[in-house]
């Protein structure tokens, strides 16, 4: 198991390198000059040149990339061009709220999706099944920002039930919980549908399996047949698929944080890219991709926990 995790961590290295390279190239394509941004509108060309030299922007691109990599390996993420604050400090302040939002979204969305999918599969073809599937298709088709805007308009603005801008303290306080409710509903809401659909397919598959027939033939109550035999086995593909969907969720987090002014990494990334703050943008890309890698690692571990055949190999 440990060897398995170590192997996965090793394969993460080239992935990270690729992410850094692509991120770096993409940021070069943005048609604004960081030196000009940094210098401000009134600066003379001399000043801009000096800043460019100071930031290392006069070097050839490949040189800039490797200099950046070198600093990165020493743990130096650089300094934000706009705020003149170390990138690590900016990231440190935003990772918490993002994790908080992810947690608050998934903690209800995954169980609800699994529950809906299981019930839909068990009563396949019923009205409930069809309703869940219609909801799932809607969940896949409706964009995150739309869900967010609808919630803001009705729950936040018209009915004034919940706040809809920013964070208000940690999640375990009432104010914090209220503040995170709408963003978490938005981000989790678009995740329920896909999870329900995947679970339904997987449970249907397992319900037809021989070992479920065995479970019934030994006189188990239906509740146990469904929980211990159908759902328990169906979780193996469901966990894998959820892992694959996490990228989608990270993208959703960027949008959700932006529309709800949630002080997380996603909103920081959008701001950094819009203002050509290259070190900061690269920093957020690193954090988001690390998040993706870590989540997939967790999925791998879970997979082994759920399936003894994987554990053995």
């Amino acid at each position, binding site marked *: 198991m440990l060897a398995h995790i170590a192997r996965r961590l090793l394969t993460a290295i080239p992935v990270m390198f690729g992410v850094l390279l692509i991120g770096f190239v993409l940021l070069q394509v943005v048609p604004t000059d960081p030196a000009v941004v940094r210098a401000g509108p009134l600066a003379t060309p001399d000043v801009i040149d000096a800043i460019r030299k100071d930031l290392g922007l006069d070097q050839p691109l490949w040189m800039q990339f490797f200099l950046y990599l070198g600093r990165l390996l020493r743990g130096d993420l650089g300094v934000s061009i706009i705020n003149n604050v170390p990138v690590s400090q900016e990231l440190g302040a935003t990772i918490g709220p993002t994790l908080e939002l992810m947690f608050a979204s998934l903690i209800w969305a995954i169980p609800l999706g699994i529950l809906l999918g299981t019930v839909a599969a068990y009563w396949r073809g019923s009205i409930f099944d069809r309703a869940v599937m219609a909801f799932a298709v809607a969940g896949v088709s409706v964009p995150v920002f739309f869900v967010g805007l609808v919630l803001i308009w009705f729950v936040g603005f018209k009915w004034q039930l919940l706040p809809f801008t920013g964070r208000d303290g940690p999640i375990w306080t009432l104010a914090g919980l209220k503040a995170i409710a709408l963003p978490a509903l938005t981000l989790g809401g678009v995740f329920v549908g896909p999870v329900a659909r995947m679970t339904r397919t997987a449970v249907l598959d397992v319900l*037809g*399996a*021989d*070992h479920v*027939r*065995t*479970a*019934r*033939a*030994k*006189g*188990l*109550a239906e509740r*146990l047949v469904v929980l*211990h*035999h159908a759902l*328990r*086995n169906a979780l*193996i593909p469901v966990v894998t698929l959820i892992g694959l969907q996490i990228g989608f969720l990270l993208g959703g987090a960027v949008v959700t944080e932006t529309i709800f002014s949630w002080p997380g990494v996603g909103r920081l990334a959008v701001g950094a890219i819009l203002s050509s703050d290259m070190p900061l943008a690269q920093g957020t890309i690193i954090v988001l991709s690390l998040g993706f890698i870590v989540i997939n690692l967790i999925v791998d571990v879970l997979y082994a926990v*759920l*399936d*003894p*055949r994987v554990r*053995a190999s």
Partner: protein
Amino acid sequence: MAGQGPLLAIEDLRTVFRSSAGDLPAVDGVSVSVAPGRTLGIVGESGCGKSVLSLSIMRLVPRPGRITSGSIRFDGRDLLTLSEGEMRGLRGGSIGMIFQEPMTSLNPVHTVGRQIIEAVSAHKDLSASAAKDVAIDALRRVRIPAPEKRFEEYPHQLSGGMRQRVMIAMALSCEPRLLIADEPTTALDVTIQAQILDLLKLLQQETGMSIILITHDLGVVAEMADEVAVMYAGRVVETGPVNAVFGDAQHPYTLGLFGSVPRLDGENQSLLAIEGTVPPPFALPPGCRFNPRCGFASDRCRSEMPLLRPLGPSHQAACWHAPVEAEFG
């Protein structure tokens, strides 16, 4: 055991699968019974309805199948009138069942021990450690070496024969009075087959349970069964004590089945195949269902369905021309 009433008596059972073309009968008017401590073999080709019959006894016919008429009396009670809860008490309790595929019939994500404990706990109110003792004892009874070690293992760590032993241990953990074995050895190697059959026989002697053995293998029936019922296209076409049916088969289908078994003794004969295939439930011929494949078929066979008729002590066949020797020599 003669003189005792049957443990299980199926009367005129009909199980259909609902489809857009109407109700398709998979089991159509079957009556069989098994006495305490005896073994009933049910033989037939794939698709003859023998597995649906076995699942009907457990009331586990998958949708869209359902039992439409008949009765299944077990120990005096009609199983078809029991509530689902009462039925659940019998499944795995008084009636155990094992299946063809030991590879897929055990849940791959739970240990062998846990799966047996589940069966035990479903029927007996035992403490965790007592249930574990019962489960390990069940493994020991099916002659699994080092049962305490196997208890902790997952199905993928066991061989096919071991898995079938685990299935048997599970089915017998609550000491059922009837064991339904649906093709228990079909998926196994020949040597393992023999071991499993010997084990079943031994366990039957130890416990006095009745067995319904479903198989397409006449050799298995000959070795194991006391009575045999030959099924064709959802109906029993011949039934009786195994000696009578094997020694003096009367239905052309039964004769055809024997003709298709390779033998080691005797001349170098070519195998006789029964031409054609079992008709599917949606294309059953009028009259005797075997008539399109039967060498003896007459006009009557093509228009009227023959019912089981007695031909000897408890030996019956459903053929207008039985006994065949009398008519055709």
